[in-house]
């Protein structure tokens, strides 16, 4: 120590202030939270992975909102729907408001009319041979003479073949089979049972404009509230990706607000009782806050943004940092600043070992392939180290003179001490219990791991069920199974899709699949359009054929000249391309079915009512520069999650090895580290057994929370072990330990009240794990029963 103590104190204070200021500056200027799941998926190596990532991305449907009204007789529902749709259409928040079949505008009608001989499904054989023309003419005559004659008359001279009507039907029904999708009541969409009336909305606001999305959904709610005034029994359900994104944000914000209030209240009261000073209470939070700030800043600097999950998990992982100042405080006994620093020095070796051994497990995370896990590793390591540094060097500077821990919880302390001293006697029963836990986990039929992608979703199962219901009502693809076709150009993927049609039709006939939606049904490839064009007869041929039929039908010569003109015009028409749809509602309809992503064109073939997955998987192929892949999104995302979990578990094993080596080096022993690790891993075993036994298979959130339990376990055990050499300190050390434990249980116990499943999972795991660690630490503590 070359510098006088005041100088060194000043320098330390300045260094921490500068670090905190720098961290805050980074937070203020760069704070960006991302939420897409793709950072937790492996970098796409196969076509399958890339297509899957694409689907998880949800870009194409992010602004969709499904709405349903119920609670009144069908007629009132219909009127309410019409009124609501009218208001929303004129409101400007929604790009599209649909509550029944689209009534095509002039632009759409003109486009279909013009291109009708190139669009539509391919036909085999001759299109306008004499036999086909005869049949068509008979149909037109009967149509004209039917009760619908006046309607038929509008187009029959141009549309002898009835192609316009066929196309209109195809585009209107959106390819859905008659038995699926909404039913119409006076032109308004209803669920099959007529209980709900339906709307499909598309927000103008982009996926990254939460304020505008908020305004759009607010407008929907406001218009509905106005309807409710006249029809009070009406109820509204709103789901869909757009609604859920906003809802999640709102719910998590509300949750965090309430829960953090409760957490601050309860832990504040408790710590105030334990520490006996408001100022100490504030100081106890300094290392954690400092750790979170520097860790977030580090991730922002290294990755440019921080994922929402990294932030949540990261704060969970470094939650153990709240314990550090508590250890320090409990060792202060009315001494001044200088002595306080001395105490910091005295517990430092134990604290340092705890921090390093916890942090080293996360260093391994930095090696991961998964962007999200690397972020998490960096967050945890930075957070833990800076929190520990703040405890060691900054906190002693801030300690008030003459502080000693409060005695108000002395009775509790004495009772716990008695229990802890007796704990080692319970070793054999505890071992037996642990063996039972292990045995249970080994033989149980219950699933240990939750691989359902929904378990990562912050949306409640009830809301997801509502969403499934509305999607089914609307005949909307519920994200189940698809064939994804990817290639270098739109033309390529359309051609490939067309090649699938005969196979899919065969599978439909065999009942392997219900129906399907594909872009090529609406917009055939240029090749297919040209093929249809080639099949059209020239003017002279067509006119001669029609004239030849004249004697058999009561039509004046020349009646079908407009038709002949149209067919002739079609023979010189260029094929319609995706660009040609711009400005019509067809473009919007086609977007989820044909889009560009990551430098390639993707055409998903959405499958409904899949009964034979194996048969569909047979269609997988790579040829001519296109890839066709059958995806069961649920299964595939489970595969990705399994991959992520396996990967994390593999890293953890390396982390544990690193912890062992670190402990072995510091203790200069190969067996002591095992004794330190035993209570920790026994706790993890115990928590796992309790969760699985209570029908809670472990999701990714539980697993990450178990990492915090490991951190807590190491911390507790090291301090228990420290008592081997410092028996005189039993009182301070043990007091700090149980105060830490109660604080942790309070904070994480409150998380179990959350309405967001992930936060509940984290809360439950840690609130169970902390007491396990304390109890098992005491059971295997050597010192407990030695001090008389």
């Amino acid at each position, binding site marked *: 120590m070359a510098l006088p103590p005041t100088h060194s104190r000043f320098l330390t204070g300045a260094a921490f202030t500068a670090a905190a200021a720098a961290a805050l500056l980074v937070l203020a200027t760069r704070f960006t939270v991302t939420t897409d799941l793709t950072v937790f998926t492996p970098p796409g190596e196969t076509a399958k992975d890339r297509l899957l990532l694409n689907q998880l991305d949800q870009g194409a449907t992010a602004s969709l909102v499904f709405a349903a009204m119920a609670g009144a007789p069908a007629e009132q529902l219909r009127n309410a729907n019409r009124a609501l749709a009218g208001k929303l259409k004129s409101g400007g928040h929604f790009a599209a408001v649909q509550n029944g079949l689209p009534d095509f505008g002039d632009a759409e009608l003109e486009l279909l009319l013009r291109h009708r001989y190139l669009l539509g499904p391919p036909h085999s054989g001759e299109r306008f041979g004499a036999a086909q023309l005869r049949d068509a003419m008979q149909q037109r005559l009967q149509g004209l*003479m039917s009760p619908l*004659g006046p309607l038929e008359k509008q187009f029959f001279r141009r549309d002898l073949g009835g192609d316009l009507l066929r196309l209109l039907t195809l585009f209107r029904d959106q390819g859905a089979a008659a038995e699926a999708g909404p039913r119409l009541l006076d032109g308004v969409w209803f669920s099959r049972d007529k209980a709900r009336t339906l709307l499909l909305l598309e927000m103008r606001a982009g996926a990254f404009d939460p304020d505008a999305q908020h305004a759009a959904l607010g407008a929907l709610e406001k218009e509905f509230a106005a309807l409710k005034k006249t029809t009070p029994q009406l109820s509204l359900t709103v789901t869909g990706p757009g609604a859920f994104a906003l809802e999640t944000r709102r719910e998590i914000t509300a949750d965090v607000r309430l829960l953090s209030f409760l957490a601050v209240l309860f832990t504040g009261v408790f710590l105030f009782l334990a520490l006996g000073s408001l100022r100490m209470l504030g100081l106890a939070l300094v290392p954690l806050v400092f750790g979170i700030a520097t860790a977030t800043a580090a991730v922002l600097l290294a990755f440019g943004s921080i994922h929402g999950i990294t932030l949540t998990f990261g704060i969970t992982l470094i939650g153990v940092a709240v314990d550090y100042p508590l250890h320090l405080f409990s060792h202060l006994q009315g001494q001044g600043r200088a002595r306080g620093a001395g105490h910091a020095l005295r517990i430092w070796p134990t604290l340092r070992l705890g921090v390093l051994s916890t942090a080293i497990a996360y260093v391994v995370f930095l090696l991961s392939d998964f962007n999200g896990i690397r972020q998490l590793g960096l967050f945890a390591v930075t957070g833990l180290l800076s929190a520990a540094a703040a405890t060691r060097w900054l906190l002693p500077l801030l300690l008030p003179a003459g502080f000693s821990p409060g005695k108000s919880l002395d009775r509790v302390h004495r009772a716990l001490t008695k229990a802890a001293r007796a704990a080692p006697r319970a070793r054999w029963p505890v071992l037996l219990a642990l063996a039972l836990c292990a045995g249970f986990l080994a033989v149980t039929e219950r699933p240990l791991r939750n691989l359902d992608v929904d378990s990562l979703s912050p949306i409640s199962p009830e809301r997801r069920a509502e969403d499934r219901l509305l999607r089914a009502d609307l005949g909307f693809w519920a994200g189940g199974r698809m064939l994804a076709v990817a290639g270098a150009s739109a033309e390529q993927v359309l051609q490939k899709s067309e090649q699938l049609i005969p196979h899919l039709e065969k599978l439909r006939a065999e009942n392997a699949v219900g129906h399907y939606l594909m872009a090529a049904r609406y917009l055939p490839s240029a090749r297919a359009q040209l093929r249809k064009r080639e099949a059209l007869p020239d003017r002279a041929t067509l006119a001669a054929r029609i004239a030849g039929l004249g004697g058999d039908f009561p039509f004046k010569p020349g009646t079908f000249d407009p038709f002949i003109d149209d067919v002739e015009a079609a023979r010189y028409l260029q094929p319609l391309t995706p660009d040609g749809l711009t400005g019509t509602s067809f473009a919007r309809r086609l977007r989820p079915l044909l889009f560009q992503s990551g430098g390639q064109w993707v055409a998903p073939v959405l499958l409904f009512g899949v009964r034979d997955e194996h048969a569909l998987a047979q269609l997988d192929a790579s040829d001519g520069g296109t890839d066709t892949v059958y995806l069961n999104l649920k299964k595939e995302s489970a595969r990705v999650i399994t991959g992520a979990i396996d990967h994390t578990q593999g890293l953890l094993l390396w982390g544990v090895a690193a912890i062992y080596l670190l402990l072995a080096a510091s203790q200069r022993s190969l067996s002591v580290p095992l004794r330190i690790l035993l209570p920790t891993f026994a706790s993890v075993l115990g928590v796992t057994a309790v969760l699985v036994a209570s029908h809670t298979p472990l999701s990714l959130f539980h697993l990450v929370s178990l990492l915090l339990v490991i951190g807590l376990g190491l911390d507790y055990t090291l301090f228990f072990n420290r008592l081997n050499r410092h028996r005189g300190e039993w009182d301070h050390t043990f007091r700090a330990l149980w105060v830490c434990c109660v604080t942790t249980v309070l904070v994480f116990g409150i998380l179990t009240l959350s309405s967001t499943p992930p936060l509940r999972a984290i809360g439950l795991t840690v609130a169970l794990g902390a007491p396990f660690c304390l109890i098992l630490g005491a059971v295997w503590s050597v010192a407990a029963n030695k001090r008389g």
Partner: protein
Amino acid sequence: MKNLTLTLGALCAAALWTPAAADGAWDLPALMKELGGIRLIDAAFTEQKQAEFLSGGEFAVSGEMHFKAPHTLRRIVTKPYRESIIIDESTVIIKRLDDKNETDRVRFIEIDSHPSIRLFIDSMRATMAGDLATVLEIYEVELSGGRQEWGLRLVPRRKELKKFIRAVHVTGSANRINTLLVHEDDDTRSLITLDYNFIR
């Protein structure tokens, strides 16, 4: 001159309405009540269409018509081709009976899938079923004659229907519709004549 027209118009209107009043409250609600009381009709029909695109200027079909309240209508053409059209609450089913082309014989049309078909069929049905409120919503209505021989002139109010129909002229006696004349446009009109076998 204008005044004269108006006066004549008013006189005509008075002339049209007076007999109705004299005939024990014969008015539009009374007619609609008569029509609305019908449960079952079985009749022979002929439909004669005049249009500029037809060679000879006209073409006729004939067959049977069955109506069952409230909204099932079967129209079977027997001459010069065979066809049956069934219109029920929500679908139109068209069968071409003497067609050798097996696959294209039956066509289903979901009425609600086509707003113009919906409108068209509703307008037809409302008249047949005596649904006064709907009739008045769709058409401007003019009743002439007495109970034993009445005439009804219907002019569409909405432009969606006007696109297809200028006017419909119905004649009948008591609860029977005898003829329906549909003016589609200047060149096209259809006259449907009914010959009752059974009515209840």
